[in-house]
């Protein structure tokens, strides 16, 4: 597999979008480098041509500039010119460096921003099958910490590395133009410094990882101690915990110190090399200057050039060897982007606006995996405005039915029609807009109750919100909170009970006023009195809204127009309460437990007594 090329695809695309910014920043850094080069050069010119005897003259460009200023003598009388020139040149170098940073940062940051948004949108389009299998912790990790690694790499390392490379490309040729031999002397150890840094950081990668892991292990110990504090106390294991933590803490500290020791070797050795390079320039240049091979000014300038180059190059070696981390991160992000999205056909049409809520299932079969069918040849018709209750044991395919209806999964066999339109040919989002559904697990977002309820219809009025909350029998509960509808829930606010959550999610769904409403065992945590109240409210729309309720409460079934019994993926019985209670089977048993339980209970009592 051609993996590496694949890995960089997103990056290449995103960089291409901003290529003018990147080009502009390269131009800016080139200009900045030239100005940086000029600073020691000005010193050199002043030393050689103005303040030392004999002055050097060569009829060249520099001489012409000096002549333009009125000659060396006049310049000597107005030496503040040179001082100002140094300040201005430094300022210009700084200005262009800032311009380069501005362009590069804009490019990198918008790249990251685009990537973040693209990932976010992509996550919402991922297929249900992928999401179910994926470890959500890992997904979050990839979207956040891998993204951070990438961001840091782009905004810090790439920017720095680019700067150093351009600086080298500009300054080294200019140095050679001034004095080949001095350039050779000044750059002698540079390749060694670079290689040393590169190799060193390549080799201690493993140690860095070990330190990270030890830190992670130590954090886990603390975290488990704090979350399991009841267990710790119940067994009076405080001392043991302290010992365990001490081991983790010590191991981490030891590795951390070992890393510092390794780093001290690196800094000392590389400093030795860098200072040595400065020393070589000093002594070698001094030798050449004393023999008149180079001027004093050139000698002075090269001391400056060396300092300008050597430290960033050492950095370059380190950055280059750490770039590997970013490559891994890019790969992990790309993997998410490559995950399958819910397919959307181009020919999909929207569910008509006057959709009446009628549903037809014909011989529908579906399985999450090849071995086992979750739905097996299911056929039924639901008329517009009907109320249907679905009962059946766990795993009988009730929820699967709803998932297919919502187009969370696509059926492979048979046919499902909404008002005569084949479901697979309808636009997913229009289908979901037409069906209000409550999933088994109520999920609320950590924001205010108002925002949560209006989540499904953000343009809803407050009156509509209050009405839907009334219908969901949660209005009074909400009014009892100090901040009423502005109460923030979840991690940062009030935590709701299971029943309250279910009712808030119901209100959120009711506010949408859809032709079909589906409740998937949604009122399990609500007490039966409140449940009756809710069902009564829902029945105000009876005949206008198709209502499908998955439940195991006979009281709910009684009110339905028809009851479907699901067992092992099949629709095994359907009819009214009166019909089904007569037929031996699942429904009759359920009914007996819930209404005629007295007999069984009494016989049980007799046994215990």
């Amino acid at each position: 597999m051609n993996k590496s090329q694949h890995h960089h695809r997103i990056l290449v695309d995103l960089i291409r979008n901003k290529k003018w910014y990147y080009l502009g920043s390269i131009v800016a850094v080139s200009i900045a480098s030239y100005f940086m080069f000029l600073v020691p050069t000005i010193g050199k010119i002043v030393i050689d041509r103005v303040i030392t005897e004999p002055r050097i003259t060569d009829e060249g460009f520099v001489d012409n500039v000096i002549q333009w200023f009125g000659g060396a003598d006049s310049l000597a009388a107005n030496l503040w010119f040179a001082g100002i020139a140094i300040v201005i040149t430094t300022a210009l170098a700084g200005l262009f460096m800032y311009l380069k940073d501005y362009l590069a940062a804009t490019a990198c940051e918008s790249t990251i921003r685009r990537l973040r948004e693209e990932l976010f949108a992509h996550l919402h389009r991922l297929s249900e099958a992928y999401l179910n299998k994926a470890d959500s912790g890992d997904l979050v990790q990839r979207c956040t910490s891998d993204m951070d690694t990438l961001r840091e790499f782009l905004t810090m390392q790439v920017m720095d590395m680019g700067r150093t490379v351009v600086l080298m490309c500009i300054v080294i040729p200019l140095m050679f133009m001034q004095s080949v031999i001095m350039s050779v002397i000044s750059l002698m150890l540079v390749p060694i410094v670079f290689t040393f840094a590169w190799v060193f950081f390549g080799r201690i990668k493993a140690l860095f990882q070990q330190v990270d892991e030890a830190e992670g292990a130590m954090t886990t110990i603390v975290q488990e101690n704090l979350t399991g504090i009841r267990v710790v106390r119940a067994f009076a294991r405080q001392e043991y915990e302290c010992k365990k933590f001490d081991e983790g803490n010590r191991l981490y500290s030891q590795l951390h110190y070992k890393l510092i020791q390794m780093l001290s070797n690196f800094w000392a050795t590389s400093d030795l090399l860098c200072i040595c390079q400065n020393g070589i320039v000093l002594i070698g240049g001094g030798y050449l200057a004393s023999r008149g091979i180079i001027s004093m000014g050139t000698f002075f300038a090269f001391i400056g050039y060396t300092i300008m180059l050597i430290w960033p190059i050492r950095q370059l070696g380190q950055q280059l060897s750490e770039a590997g981390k970013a490559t891994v991160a890019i790969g992990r992000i790309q993997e998410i982007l490559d995950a399958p999205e819910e397919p959307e056909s181009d020919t999909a049409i929207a569910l008509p606006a006057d959709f009446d809520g009628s549903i037809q299932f014909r011989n529908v079969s579906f399985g999450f995996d090849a071995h086992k069918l979750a739905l097996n040849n299911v056929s039924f018709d639901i008329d517009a405005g009907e109320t249907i209750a679905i009962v059946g044991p766990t795993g009988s395919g009730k929820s699967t039915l709803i998932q297919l209806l919502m187009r969370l999964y696509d059926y492979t066999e048979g046919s499902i029609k909404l008002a005569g339109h084949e479901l697979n040919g309808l636009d997913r989002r229009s289908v979901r807009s037409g069906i209000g559904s409550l999933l088994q697990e109520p999920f609320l977002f950590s924001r205010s109750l108002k925002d949560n309820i209006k989540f499904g219809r953000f343009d809803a009025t407050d009156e509509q919100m209050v009405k839907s909350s009334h219908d969901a029998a949660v209005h009074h509960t909400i009014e009892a909170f100090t901040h009423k509808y502005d109460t923030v829930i979840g991690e940062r606010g009030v935590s709701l009970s299971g029943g309250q959550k279910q009712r808030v999610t119901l209100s959120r769904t009711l506010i949408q006023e859809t032709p079909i409403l589906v409740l998937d065992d949604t009122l399990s945590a609500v007490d039966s009195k409140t449940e009756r109240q809710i069902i009564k409210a829902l029945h105000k729309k009876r005949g206008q809204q198709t209502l499908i309720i998955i439940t195991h409460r006979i009281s709910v079934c009684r009110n339905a127009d028809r009851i479907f019994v699901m067992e092992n993926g099949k629709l095994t019985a359907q009819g009214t309460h009166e019909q089904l209670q007569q037929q031996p089977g699942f429904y009759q048993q359920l009914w007996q437990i819930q209404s005629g339980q007295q007999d069984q209970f009494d016989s049980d009592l007799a046994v215990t007594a």
Partner: protein
Amino acid sequence: MTTQYNSTPARKGAWKTLFLMVYRPQKKLFHTLMAVAIFTATIDASFTLVTKSLVDDIVANGVEANLLKYAVLFTVLMLSIVSSIWYFIRLAGRLSTTLMYTLRKQSFEHLQSLSFTFFDNNAVGWLLARITSDTTRIANVVAWGTLDLFWGIPFILGIFTVLLILDWQLGLVVLGLFPFLAAVAMWFNIRILDSSRNLRRTNSRITAVYNESISGVQTSKVLVREDENLKEFQNDTRKMYRLSMHNLLLTSAFYPFVNVFVSMAVGAALWLGGVDVLAGTLTLGTLVAFMTYARSLMDPMLEVSGKLAELQRTTACVERVIGLLEVQPDIADSEQVKKHIEQALQSGAETLDGGDARIDTIEFRHVDFGYKAEEPVLKNFNLAVKAGATVALVGATGSGKSTIVSLLCRFYEPTQGQILINGEDYRGRSLAWLQSNLGIVLQTPFLFTGTVRSNIRYGNLDATDDEIVAAAKAVNVHDIIMQMERGYDTEIQEGGNNLSTGQKQLISFARAIIGNPQILVMDEATSSVDTQTEHLLQQSLQTVLQGRTSFVIAHRLSTIRSADTIVVIDQGELVEQGSHDELLAKKGRYFDLYRKQFQTETEEELLSQ
């Protein structure tokens, strides 16, 4: 994302406390580090003098100049500076590692002594951040800050001394620019730190949004909220972009700004010094030295101002950590009990505190309790239990069952009334004694990372492998463990994610009984697991409870029925008490509860067919 609520007060004037706490034990290390830093600064300041003498020598003597002398001098300086760099990195590394280790150890051990009220009011995430990141930050700032300040300040002073000696007028000019430079550097450093902090905060906000979006993706899909979600997320990414750009540009403007100030000093040196050289009152070497010194002011300036800014911004961390260390536990052994423990240690008594070893009776006498003063949870609760009896606590959610058990474990203490063990108030016994006689099984079983074996051993650290197997067999989990890939050596992942709830429950049974505790406390799981495991659990439960004083928060009928005494709690009050048969005969509250649970269980059976 974890919530950050906390009740720990930040402690004002914490730096001083911290300083005394860390300085005294590490005096020698601190002093050596300071000495090495000052030594390094001196050598750093001497380098340029070599350059100066060399230049002067060459100008004066030309070919006659003795370069070897300078080469030797330079080498000596180079070697001493490199070795002191090597040494001080190690010293500062050792100091920071030691401080980190000690601070963490102290805070972790301190947490072990704090009571549950504290943990109720301080989020795990908040505490975790104090123990891990705050301590790291403090240790680094103290160690590397000491190094940088003791290197930077003498270096700056050294440079000025040399400048003033070489040419006091020129020296004063450079000195005059210094305050501006310092002000600019400080201004930038503080802003950069603040902007980084803002950036981190926004970044964690983005992490939280990803987290929530991934958990709620199905909800967003069925409510067709994808576009709105993206729009909201774009607000966050826009903010992140803005802050990030701000941070990058601030950092990138910093260096050029400082550089312009430095170049003013260099320019001034070239101008004024150049005039002097022309007049013959200053040597070229001194001029070069001046320009080099002016430039080398930059590094120590940046380091010192950076560290000062960091010190200032770490104050909050220090206040939080010291605040945490100063929290006093509400529940601890009294002075009297401590005295008993000492006596018992000397006399070699059977128990830790010299009291009774056997627990014969437990009595709650007129116990009142509330987590908050204004919300009483238990009101005048009375209950007497004899050794070996099983007490089932039944009642609705929030009736106070768990509170009774928490009080018994002395996780909290009664606000009124007493809990008596063998007729003596349990506050007269040591906490460790009571808690080491407890076995506890939580509703949601908590296992630690580690092997299955080590988790069972948690209940009795001295248990042999055979005893572990025996305990596992007693609770019917041995076969399940043996079916796992690595048997007792199977690694349990964080949160026990690789085991089913039933398996975790069984393992926590084994853990509870292996220490052969006199009192067993159990919060039975409400939701049933699969039928097979449910059956095993019920069987094991009988073994676990047998012959032990047990308090069970019971939900399942079979558990309730097998209890010796059933206590019905309603709104913090004991409403009925007696055996199963007695209470049924009463046809009161228990009768209703039992009937309801009977229905639920029969229904569950039918539904999970």
